[in-house]
Structure formats: structure tokens, C-alpha cells
């Protein structure tokens, strides 16, 4: 009984505390964020932000903010279709790998969102331009939402985004369990390239989401932070095997299309489970890989719903 009260009191206290933090955050007080490249103090609500990786740009839009500077997108250059409307007149500061520091400085931002894997070397200069926060890897979309929510004083919206995501994941799992007779277990995500086929692993953006949805995705063996295997020989086909295949829509490039034909017309292809059960789907590379943000993740989930004939 005492234990129970104790627990209750603690909960109340925590609630109170978080309420207080919320009010503190809402005001112009300085808060310190701990991130992948150190601690950064931010005062007030930043309004001019520069996002240096795709996931951060996507998340800014999700939080209802238009950045003053963004980097070029990987596909559908210079901006992904689904973000074009919101980012119509935003300055581009170059490539994600080497953004133009002078341009960033000239935009006079009050917050920069970076990623350690890309921007560790220029972090000192970035911090001199404006307070800069950084996540470890570009495809950690939940970290991005959380960090940006705190940094931008939009904690409530950030929590909403993440809660909404958690609910959707739960709903999907529920629907899948009730509607499918044999719940698919293993999933492979493939990308046909001019001279090889890429098998995305658990640590990739889409791989981590599929894992969260309850599927088993191929895992990396050995080296850390490896997020895809490059397969060149059609003999390797058995190592793709899974109950469901998701394949990135092919580009117009005739060589890629030929590689696709070579692989799919190969007799070994017919022996794969997903092919035999006709569970091969084409998906949109932007949502499934290149966007790397919470909006992209939701678009991806929409497509997963759709492929299993479920309603989101």
C-alpha cells in the first residue's frame, strides 16, 4: 500500500515537473541540449533554421516550420515532390555532404540542424554561425523529431508526431494480425542498380521501420553501421529470400531495367517465397529511403498498409 502511494506521488510529481518544464520552455529561457557533438544552449524560439540533412528538412515541415535554408535532395532534385509546396522559396545551400558555409552564414540562421556522420568536421564553424544541434546518423527520424522539438520549442507537436506514429504502428500490427491468414514474417527490401542489387538491412531507414512494424529484416553481419548489401551475382539470390519483397520503383535507365529483367527472369527468382506467393511490391524510393524523416516514414507506412490491403 505504501509502495503504491509512493508510486502515485512520484507520478504526480513527474507530471508537475514536466508541466513546469513546459512553461519554462515556452518562455524565453535558455535551455541546454545534449546531442551527438556536445551540448548546445538555445535561447527563446528559433525562427530562422537551416536544415543540413533530408530528415531534418522533412521534420521541420512536419513541425510546421519553414526553414530558411535546406540542402539539395538526393532524388527529384532539388526538392522532393512532397515537400515542394512548403519549401517553394527556400534557399538551397548545396549538397548534404558539403554544404556551403558562406551561404549558411549569409542566411543568418538562429539554429542549425546537422548530422554527425556528415558534418562532424565543420561543426566548429557551424556553431560559430549559429547554435547547432546534431544527431548521430541521418536516418534516425525519431531522434530528429525529439531533438528538433526541444530545440524549436515545439515539444508538444513533437510528442504528438511520435505518439501518432506509435499509435499507427500498433494499429497496423493489430489489423495485420486480424486480416491476414498467414501473417508474413520476413521482408526484404531491394533496390536494382545498374550493376548490382542492393539488399537493405535492419539498420537502414526502411529496415528499422519494418522491424518496428514486427517484420524480420535481414541483419548485418560484421561491420557496424552497414545498412545495405551490394549483391553482384545472381547466384546470391537465395540470400534475398523472404515472405514479402518490396522493390524500389525502377528508374528509366535501360541498364537498370535490364538488370531487373536478368534477375527476375532467372529460374532462381521463381524459387523465392515472395515470388511464389506473389508478394512482390514496388514502392517509392523517396518515402522508403531518401526522405529519412517522420513525414517520409508515415508515407512509407501508408504504402505498407496499402500493399496488405488495409486501411490506414
Amino acid at each position, binding site marked *: 500500500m505504501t509502495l503504491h502511494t509512493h508510486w502515485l506521488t512520484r507520478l504526480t510529481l513527474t507530471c508537475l515537473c514536466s508541466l513546469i518544464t513546459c512553461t519554462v520552455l515556452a518562455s524565453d529561457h535558455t535551455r541546454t541540449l545534449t546531442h551527438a557533438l556536445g551540448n548546445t544552449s538555445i535561447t527563446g524560439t528559433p525562427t530562422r533554421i537551416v536544415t543540413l540533412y533530408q530528415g531534418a528538412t522533412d521534420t521541420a515541415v512536419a513541425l510546421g516550420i519553414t526553414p530558411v535554408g535546406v540542402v539539395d535532395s538526393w532524388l527529384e532534385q532539388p526538392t522532393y515532390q512532397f515537400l515542394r509546396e512548403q519549401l517553394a522559396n527556400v534557399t*538551397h*545551400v*548545396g*549538397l548534404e*555532404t*558539403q*554544404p*556551403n*558555409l*558562406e*551561404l549558411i*552564414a*549569409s542566411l543568418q540562421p538562429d539554429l542549425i540542424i546537422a548530422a554527425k*556522420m556528415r558534418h*562532424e*568536421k*565543420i561543426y*566548429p*564553424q557551424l556553431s*560559430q*554561425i549559429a547554435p547547432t544541434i546534431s544527431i548521430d546518423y541521418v536516418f534516425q527520424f525519431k531522434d530528429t523529431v525529439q531533438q528538433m522539438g526541444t530545440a524549436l520549442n515545439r515539444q508538444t507537436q513533437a510528442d504528438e508526431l511520435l505518439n501518432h506514429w506509435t499509435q499507427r504502428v500498433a494499429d497496423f500490427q493489430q489489423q495485420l494480425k486480424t486480416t491476414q491468414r498467414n501473417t508474413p514474417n520476413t521482408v526484404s527490401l531491394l533496390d536494382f542498380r545498374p550493376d548490382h542489387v*542492393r539488399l537493405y538491412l535492419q539498420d537502414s531507414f526502411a529496415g528499422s521501420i519494418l522491424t518496428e512494424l514486427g517484420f524480420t529484416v535481414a541483419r548485418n553481419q560484421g*561491420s*557496424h*553501421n*552497414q*545498412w*545495405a548489401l*551490394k549483391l553482384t551475382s545472381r547466384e546470391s539470390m537465395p540470400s534475398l529470400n523472404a515472405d514479402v519483397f518490396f522493390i524500389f520503383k525502377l528508374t528509366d535507365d535501360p541498364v537498370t531495367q535490364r538488370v531487373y529483367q536478368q534477375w527476375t527472369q532467372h529460374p532462381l527468382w521463381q524459387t523465392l517465397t515472395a515470388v511464389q506467393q506473389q508478394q512482390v511490391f514496388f514502392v517509392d524510393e523517396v518515402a522508403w529511403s531518401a526522405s529519412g524523416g517522420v513525414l517520409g516514414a508515415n508515407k512509407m507506412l501508408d504504402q505498407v498498409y496499402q500493399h496488405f490491403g488495409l486501411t490506414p
Partner: protein
Amino acid sequence: MPKFYTVRHAALSLQLNLKTLSVLALLLPCVLACVLLALSAGSQWLSPLTVLNELVADGRYAFVLETLRLPRIVMAFMVGAALAVSGLMLQSLIRNPLASPDIIGITGGASAAAVFFLSFLAGSLSVYWLPVAAIIGALLTALIIYGLAWQGGVSPVRLVLIGIGLAAGMNAITTLMIVLSPIATSMTAYVWLTGSVYGTNWQDVSRLLPWLLVLLPWAMSLARSIDAQALGDATAINLGIALQRDRLLVLFISVGLAGAAVAFAGAVSFVGLIAPHIARLLVDRRFASLAPVSALIGGTLVVLADTLGRTVFLPLDMPAGVFVAAVGAPFFIYLLYRHQQ
């Protein structure tokens, strides 16, 4: 009027003739003009006058000029100068105008070490250790080359042949590591392999500077021996040169210069090959004359290449190495053509 001016000071004994001095006097303003141009150019063009003003009294462009452009330009210049002198020393040592640090495997060794770092250690170690890895790679490669070329003494021919062989091996190892590494790092590795001074800060500059401050004067102090070595082994020994000892020294100073430069800027190629050739067009064939002129030309070459790299494709920032090759290669071909005439 004396033809030569001799500077004698303990270990340092240099002979500079009037022509060299006048070439240097003409070259210096040109170099400064290039640096000023490089400071003016960028995402926003600032007039040279504004630049000078801002450098004296800090104004609204102080950050862009002093934190973003200047360290990068200084770094580019130092890298170019170091590679040029390194190339010049190797060309004298090997007695062949086609030798340079990238061709005999020094750059290859640094690259293999750097790509190894980027692929397998970058997650756990800070990126500031990258130059250390690259320098270790360069020195290790030089040691291996020297060791393999040793047969009761080291001959230049053996040195260069073994260097080229090892360079090919190092390139294979680099390719192997890029293939094995996570896909995300292969782009970073490629930018490094092309050579770029992107994102240089004053701390980087202050870490490269000591290398040059020690090695360049040291190289100058060996000027007489380097000239003697270029005349052939027998002549050098007759002139009282401790041939094997000096050869080792020259090799390691040149490796130190190239390794340090490459460590901070990546595998910039061609500077070490071309800058000494341009210098030979301007001054006489003695090391004491060629070294300062090569250094100025090499430095300017990289500064100009980097300026092109960060302005031509705005807002994209291209690695300087691309433009060094683009400017250097046609010139190299012109040199060959001239040779043939």
C-alpha cells in the same frame, strides 16, 4: 655586381643568384594578388578593397573572411607549397622529371590509411584523428618502400619502381575498403581521395604549420647535397656527400611534407609533379632557386583551384583536387609537347 649572393649561417648555406631573386620579387606580388582574389571570391563577391578594409578593421564580413575564407586559403597554399617542394625533392632524388609523391605511392599509403579510418574507425574516434592516420600511412609506406629498395644501399631507380608497384597495391587496398565499407562513407572517401580543403579552420592550419616550419628550412639546408645527388651517384660521392645518409634524409623530408599536406587536404594530385616544372621554366636548376619558386607556384595553384571549386558551381562546393587536375593536366601535356620540340 656579383652574380651570386651567398647566405651563410651555421647549417644554412644558400646561393641565390640575381635572376632567382628578381623572379621571386616578381612572383610574390602575383601570389598576393591571387590570395586577395581568392578572398574576394565566394558565394558573395566582395571587392578587394572591402576585403582589405575588413581585414584591418572587423566589420560585417569579418566572419566570412576570417573564419571561413582565410583559413581555407592559407591551408590550400600550405598544402600546395608542401607538395611542390616534396615533388621537387623526389624529382632530384630519382633524377626523373615525372616523379612526384602521388606517383611513388606516398599519397597512396596516406589514402589507404585515411579510407581505413573513414570506413572502420570514424564512428568511434573523432574525425580530428584522420590526419594522424594519414600521416602514419604515408610514413609507413615510405618505410616499406625504402626497406624493399635496400640492397646494400638504395638506388633511385629501385626506389621509384618499388614505389610505383606499392602505389598500385595501396590503390587496390583503398578500393577494397571502399567496397567493404558502409555505402554512406564511400562518398566521403571519394571526396577525400580527390583532395579538398573544405571546412578548414584555424586549428587545422595551426596543426599543419609546424610540419612546414621544420621541414622546409631543413630541406633548404640540404640544397647543396640535393644538387650533388642530381648529378649522379659517383659525382655526388666525389663531391664529399654522404650519399646514402642524405638520400634517406631527402626521402623522409619529402615524405613528411607530402604526408602532412595530404593528411589535411586529402589526395591532391599533380601539384607535386607540375609546380617544379613551372619553376624550372622560370629559374636555374639549383635546388636553392627552385624550391622557393616551386613552393609559391604550388601554393598558388591549389589556392586558385580551390577558389574555382567553391565558386564555379555555387552553391555546390567542389573538391579542389578536381580543378588541380583540370588545370594541371593540360599544362602537363603542353610540357610534354614542348619537350618533344
